[in-house]
Structure formats: structure tokens, C-alpha cells
């Protein structure tokens, strides 16, 4: 164990990137006061299929980061948990990674790499569970022509603090799809970020979050169109219920001058199920060239639709069950994209439970 040196800038909360985050609840992940333990908690859940390997090795970061916590992780950890998919491997079943250990009195600084060789196809599902204090630098490398579906499930227990960057570097004609689900934890702050390194690449960032009483969930996208003819889609849906449930969605999309032929659209929809909850939603599109296919964004925040509830109830369904159906329906569009019935049903049951707990 070691206490971190404090030669990093510590966020004060006034910085744009930190203005929403409750720093006091980060348990010292951001200011170096957290005691760091070596937990290496990320493990494979079952045997690996042919064409995949999971090792610990020393790797240099894939991409620079301006996030303080990521810098702290990189200063501390050189050992990277590396899931590698061979070139041309087509793996049908999802590869599950899960957490083998967790603690709240010490922090884990984790570095993870998921890399796909050229034309590889895979689905990776990361299950973040238990009560833990975890800061993670997760980088994803998609080689030319590869296809990855990356599912990260924040199914933490109620005291967890998780801050992470999930950064994908997408090469020529590669297809990246991520589904970020956050339904548990005290504070969860994820930076799903993407950079395109060659034309023809595409990224689809999907997500759902459901914050109940007192929970803080932040998802801060950044999509960097630095090459021509890349495509990106962002669609995050959130629900909130209970006092001081707070979510933040930031959608930064940058279309640089060279990125002609860019096609991008980002969408965030929030459902406020009770009073006393707060959803911040900030789409932010910066366009430096006019030669694009399309660029747009939309953000909505609404409440239960009385007409929908009335329609369901007029068929004998109780108010409680009608609300459950509407919330499930709201999330369904994204949850079904996971493509794994067992995981989908587990998440829906968790969402039902959260809804009940919040008394919404």
C-alpha cells in the first residue's frame, strides 16, 4: 500500500469537468488522500474462447488524458489487465469480465486494455459489482475492420465510488458500440470517450442510468471527430427517483476542420419520476467544418406520461405496475441492444427493485 504523492493538480470543483461532481464523496480518489491497495479485481468469469487471451502486462497508455484521476492512476500503475482478441477471430458468445474483490477502506487503481486485432469480432461484458472504491483507466483499441460491442454494467452496491474513463480508439472501418448501464453505487462518474484515427470508423455510445435517493451518476461523453467520414451516435436514457437523486449527462462532440463527411447525432432523455431529483443534461456540439453529412443533438427531460398510465390502467393494470411497465419500456430500447437475455432480465429486475425502493 502507498499513499499517493500530491504532485497532481487537485480539482476544486470550479473546473468545467468537475463542476457537477460531489468531490467530497469521492473518498479521496481525486486528491491523493485515498489509500491505494493492490487488488487487481478484474477477472474473467468463465474460460476464454479460442482467439482471446487475458493477461497482466506492462503497457504504455494508448492515448493521452487530461483527467486528474486518470493521471493519478497512470502515475501509480504500470500493470495492465489486457483482454486481447486475435486478428480475424469471430467470437459469438460474450466474454464476461467481473470483479473478484472490493473494499471501501482502500482504493483500487485499475488499468485495463481491451484490444481487437484487424477484422476481429467480439462482445465484452464487464460486470462491476459489490461495494468498492475503484478508479479505472480502461482503454479500448479497435484495429482496422474490427467490431466490438462493449457492455459495462455498473451494478454496484450502495456505497461504491467508481470513477473511470472508458476510452476507445477506433481505426479504419472499425465499428465500436458501447452500452453503459449504471444502476448502482453512491457516486459513479464515467467518461465514455472516443477518438477516430482513420476514415470509415463508427461509434455508437448507448447508455442507461437510474439514480435513486441520494445517488450521483455522471456520464461525460467526448467524441473526437479528427478524421474525415466517421460516424457517431450517442443515445443515453436516464431515470431518477427520490430525494437528491442526481444525474449528469454531458455530450461533447467535436468535429474538427479536417473531419469532412462527419455524421453525428446525440440524444439524451431523462425521466423524472418524483420531485426532489435533478437531471443535468448538456449536449455540446462544436463544428469546425461545414462539409458534413449531419450533426445534431436533442435533450429532453420529462415526467410520467399520464396518457400512457391511463391507457394501461384502463386495462386493469395497477398504477404501480403501469409505472413499472412504462419505466421498463423507457429503458427497453437500449437494454435490448445488449443482446443477452439473462443480463437484460437481471437489469430489468434491478430497475424494478430500484423503482420500488424509491417509492416512485
Amino acid at each position, binding site marked *: 500500500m502507498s499513499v499517493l504523492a500530491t504532485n497532481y493538480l487537485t480539482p476544486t470543483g470550479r473546473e468545467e469537468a468537475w463542476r457537477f461532481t460531489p468531490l467530497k464523496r469521492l473518498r479521496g480518489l481525486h486528491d491523493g488522500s485515498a489509500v491505494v491497495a493492490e487488488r487487481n479485481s478484474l477477472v474473467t468469469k468463465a474460460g476464454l474462447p479460442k482467439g482471446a487471451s487475458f493477461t497482466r502486462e506492462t503497457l504504455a497508455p494508448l492515448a493521452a488524458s487530461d483527467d486528474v484521476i486518470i493521471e493519478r492512476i497512470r502515475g501509480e500503475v504500470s500493470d495492465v489487465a489486457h483482454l486481447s482478441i486475435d486478428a480475424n477471430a469471430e467470437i459469438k458468445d460474450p466474454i464476461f469480465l467481473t470483479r473478484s474483490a472490493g473494499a471501501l477502506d482502500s482504493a483500487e487503481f485499475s488499468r485495463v486494455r481491451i484490444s481487437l486485432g484487424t477484422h476481429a469480432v467480439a462482445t465484452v461484458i464487464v460486470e462491476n459489482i459489490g461495494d468498492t472504491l475503484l478508479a479505472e483507466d480502461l482503454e479500448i483499441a479497435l484495429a482496422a475492420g474490427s467490431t466490438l460491442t462493449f457492455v459495462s454494467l455498473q451494478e454496484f452496491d450502495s456505497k461504491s465510488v467508481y470513477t473511470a474513463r472508458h476510452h476507445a480508439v477506433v481505426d479504419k472501418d472499425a465499428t465500436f458500440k458501447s452500452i453503459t448501464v449504471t444502476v448502482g453505487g453512491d457516486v459513479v462518474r464515467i467518461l465514455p470517450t472516443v477518438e477516430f484515427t482513420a476514415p470509415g470508423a463508427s461509434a455508437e455510445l448507448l447508455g442507461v442510468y437510474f439514480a435513486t435517493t441520494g445517488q450521483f451518476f455522471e456520464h461525460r461523453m467526448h467524441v473526437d471527430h479528427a478524421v474525415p467520414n466517421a460516424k457517431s451516435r450517442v443515445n443515453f436514457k436516464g431515470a431518477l427517483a427520490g430525494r437528491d437523486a442526481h444525474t449528469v449527462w454531458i455530450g461533447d462532440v467535436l468535429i474538427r476542420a479536417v473531419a469532412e463527411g462527419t455524421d453525428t447525432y446525440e440524444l439524451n432523455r431523462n425521466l423524472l419520476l418524483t420531485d426532489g431529483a435533478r437531471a443535468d443534461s448538456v449536449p455540446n456540439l462544436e463544428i469546425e467544418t461545414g462539409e458534413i453529412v449531419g450533426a445534431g443533438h436533442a435533450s429532453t427531460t420529462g415526467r410520467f406520461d399520464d396518457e400512457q398510465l391511463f391507457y394501461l390502467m384502463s386495462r*386493469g393494470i395497477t398504477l404501480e405496475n403501469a409505472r413499472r411497465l412504462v419505466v421498463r419500456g423507457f429503458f427497453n430500447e437500449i437494454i435490448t441492444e445488449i443482446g443477452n437475455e439473462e443480463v437484460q432480465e437481471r437489469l430489468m429486475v434491478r430497475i424494478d427493485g430500484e423503482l420500488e425502493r424509491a417509492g416512485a
Partner: protein
Amino acid sequence: MSVLEIRGLQVSVNTENGSVEILKGVDLTIKSGETHAIMGPNGSGKSTLAYSIAGHPKYTITGGSVTLDGADVLDMTVDERAKAGLFLAMQYPVEVPGVSVSNFLRTAATALRGEAPKLRTWVAEVKGAMEALNMDPAFATRNVNEGFSGGEKKRHEIMQLELLKPKMAILDETDSGLDVDALRIVSEGVNRAKANNDLGVLLITHYTRILKYIKPDFVHVFANGKIVEEGGPDLADKLEANGYADYVSK
């Protein structure tokens, strides 16, 4: 034998300019097996009557009573009214994103029957109900009313009527937007429900066309928030010929 009794029903809606009275004392009694047609000009309050009986939160009851077999309907929540045996086929059925028709129907049937239908017989039951209304089985996996055409929404309403087997059904312009074949198919569905469940029907319509298929026992003229005339089936023909001028000018 069931009786739906509406007495002196007065209903208001809240608007930006305060509360506006829409129903001004409606009296109507419907018994099992009877079919009552209501015809009346646009905006006269027909849908308001239908929604008020079903319990839509938008409407405030300011006077009168509605009972089903003596039980106070106005005191019931919306789902309790359905459980008591009331059904409303809506003029504009609502889209419910992300909720499949099959999930919706099963949840409704479970609520109304007090237990989940046995999976085996249920699948056949739904399939049968859909076939009877000439609906593609693919509708079961689609989201409730989402992207349905106007006519498909109406078929979906009557399919629910057959599946959920209420005692009293209010059909609010179920015939609007139906092509000639669909009108016949939907009417046959209503007639089956009448025959099988001794259903009482309150049928709101603008056209005598549907009354050729679903024979009314009584026809009521609705104008300015109340019933202004009652008669037999021939009253509908008179209305079609003469319009509502006699009633709205009063």
C-alpha cells in the same frame, strides 16, 4: 345481468382560463346485452363522457353519479373500474414505447383475471384473437400502438375487448378511420363479444354505416354536453338525413 347507470353527470376540465363545464347533466342507463348508440356534433362532449366513466384524470366530476350494478364507479381508481367490468375503446389509443403488445396483454389479463393465464392456452388465445381481427401475428412483438396505422389501432382495441371480456364497453368512434373491410371485421368482433359475454355497449359514432353491422337498440342524440333526444334505430337515419341543426340551435 349488469346495469351501468349514469345520473345527472356533470363534468368540467381545467383550462388556462379556469374550469369549463363540458357535461351538463347526462342521464343514461345501459343493461347487459343492450347496444346504445350516441351521435352528436364535434365537441359536444361524447369523448368526455367516455373518459369520465373510465376515470381519466383530466376530467373533474362536479355532479351526478355513475354506478355499475350499484357500485360507485366514480369512487374507483382507473384499474378498479376495469376490474369491475368496464372497458373503453379509445378514439385515440395511446402509444406506449418499449412495451410489447404481448407483454401488455398478458399483464392486463393477469390483472383482470386475478392470476396469470396458463402460458400454453394463453398463446393460443392471443393468436386466435388476433386472427379473428385479421391482425398479423407480428403485432404481438411490436410496441403498444407504436407506429400502428389508425385502423390498426382500432383493431387492436377490439382485440382487447374480446380478450379481456368486460361487462360494459364504451366504443369511442371505433369506426372512424376504418376501411370497408376493417369496419366489417371490427363490427363482427364487437358482435362476438356481445354474443359471448352478453356485453352492454355504448357506441359513439358519427356514421350510420357501423349501425348496419352493430344494431343499436337505442339511439341518443348528444349536443352541448347532454342527451337531447332518444329514439330507436330509425333516429340514426333521420340524423343522417337532417344533421344536428335542430338540436344545436336550441
